[in-house]
């Protein structure tokens, strides 16, 4: 878009220079990208197996669902939902804390200004990418198969999914550290641990807590759905209510999740304001 805004060709008679922001190669590369996107969009649209009639009565179906949901089942909150929601919060918090056991060493190994060996950097990067590319629901499926349904599977799923995220961002924060103070502390003859604690840590500390809070916020959202595959928390209640077509209870669960997510976001914003 930007390219053709300045591309007006000028007649040769006036002999004024023709200004262009991008070279021909750049422009054609961009148009290729646009073309491929449009083509793959239409190709997918033509071949995807959907039944258009279903889309037409979607508003009706949605209205029907909301009508069944109302009035919400407030009575279910104290008996089942409250305890399950607390479990979900525990899963998110414990999972976030547990992820640090792996995330911090991997972040140190991944930061190329701490560990100079590119082999070690590469190994750490491999584990971080592997942790990130598997969705937390899929981690949960694996851990449910190993440890059986329950909270333990949820905590481990959240933890392993968070390792990649926290580790990557923390190692980026470590790489941005000002090396002056690191050299100064090294020059006093300090050991590796002292350099880590006194030179790297104070500079990376705000980023570290900010990353941790950010991930905690995401984990609360994610742990709310882990129960759908049996990994404990509010998702189990949601799944049961849906399988039994108890729509008023489903509505109550969704409202609870909504309220908790908003509350968590508010807390995170407040804490981050103090931290910065």
């Amino acid at each position, binding site marked *: *878009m*930007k390219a053709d*805004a300045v591309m007006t060709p000028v007649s040769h008679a006036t002999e004024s220079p023709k200004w262009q922001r991008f070279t021909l190669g*750049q422009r054609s*590369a*961009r148009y290729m*990208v646009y073309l491929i*996107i449009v083509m*793959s*969009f239409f190709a*997918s*649209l033509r*071949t*995807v*197996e*959907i*039944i258009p009639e*279903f*889309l037409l009565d*979607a508003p009706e*179906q*949605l209205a029907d*669902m909301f009508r069944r949901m109302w009035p919400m089942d407030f009575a279910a909150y104290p008996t089942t939902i409250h305890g399950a929601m*607390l*479990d979900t919060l*525990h899963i998110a*918090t*414990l999972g976030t*804390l547990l992820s640090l056991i792996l995330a911090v060493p991997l972040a140190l190994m991944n930061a190329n200004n701490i560990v100079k060996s590119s082999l070690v950097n590469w190994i750490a990067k491999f584990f971080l990418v*592997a942790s990130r*590319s*598997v*969705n937390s*629901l*899929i981690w949960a*499926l*694996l851990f449910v*198969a*190993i*440890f*059986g349904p*329950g*909270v*333990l599977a949820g*905590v481990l799923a959240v933890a392993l999914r968070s390792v990649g995220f926290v580790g990557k961002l923390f190692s980026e924060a470590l790489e941005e550290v000002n090396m002056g103070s690191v050299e100064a502390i090294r020059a006093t003859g300090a050991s590796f641990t002292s350099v880590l604690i006194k030179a790297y840590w104070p500079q990376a500390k705000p980023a570290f807590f900010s990353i941790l809070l950010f991930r905690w916020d995401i984990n609360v*959202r*994610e742990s*709310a*759905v882990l129960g*759908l*595959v049996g990994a404990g928390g509010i998702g189990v209640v*949601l799944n049961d209510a*849906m399988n039994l077509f108890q729509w008023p209870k489903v509505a109550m669960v*969704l409202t609870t*999740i*909504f309220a908790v*997510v*908003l509350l968590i976001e508010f807390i995170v914003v407040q804490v981050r304001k103090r931290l910065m």
Partner: protein
Amino acid sequence: MATIVDRQNPFKTSLSTKFLWLGLFVYLAYAFTTLDIGWDRFVLGLDQGGRLLDRLFPPNFTRWELLLHDLIESLQIAIIASVAGIFISLFVGLMAARNMMPNVISIPVRVFIALCRTFHPVIIAILFVKAVGFGALAGILTLTVASIGFVAKLFAEAIEEISFKQVEAIRATGAGFISTIVFGVIPQVFSRFIGFSIYQLDSNLRNSTMVGIVGAGGLGGTLFSAFQRFDYDFVTAILLAIIALILVGEALSNLVRRIFQ
């Protein structure tokens, strides 16, 4: 002889920090007792895990036709949802920008974006599966909503950060509203918008392999049923396919990012 002076530590930990640590430990102890996470259970699980690993390998690709069909469906869901979601986000994001629109428009639009963002895609998928039935359509709608929540929010923030001098200059030439947007606003935010869109395409690709767990099409459904039938060698094959899909997606998005810098 040097005498050792007993100075006070200038960096003493403050009282509130100590309380924070104390609170953390109390919480950990409390959480562990309520959640019934025992060491014996963990050890028992490790044994189980060994057996699971044994059955996960070698991956079983004999049903590769089903795998390929689902893989293509996931890809279709991701592409259609990204294009639709990003296209809608263009308008929604513009309407949510507080410096371009009056409060009457921007506040309801911002609430709409916040609603799209609060729920996890899987929960939105559950609602759409109820509304439009099982299949790819529910997945497409889900990821479209998720894309709006992310791209429109960041796009609105990008528009709010633009320099207004260019907008005023365009306005001063007598340009109408649409020309002002096209020549004054879009050029300033275009490259960031491309960045968000690529990121969203990537994350839609990841999520399209997951929404199937609740019946919204793609690889997730097959993965979930393979798990439930203890078909663990097929599970490994599906997981390898998902990882390959994501790696290819990441490589492509890096390429596009390099083209647009």
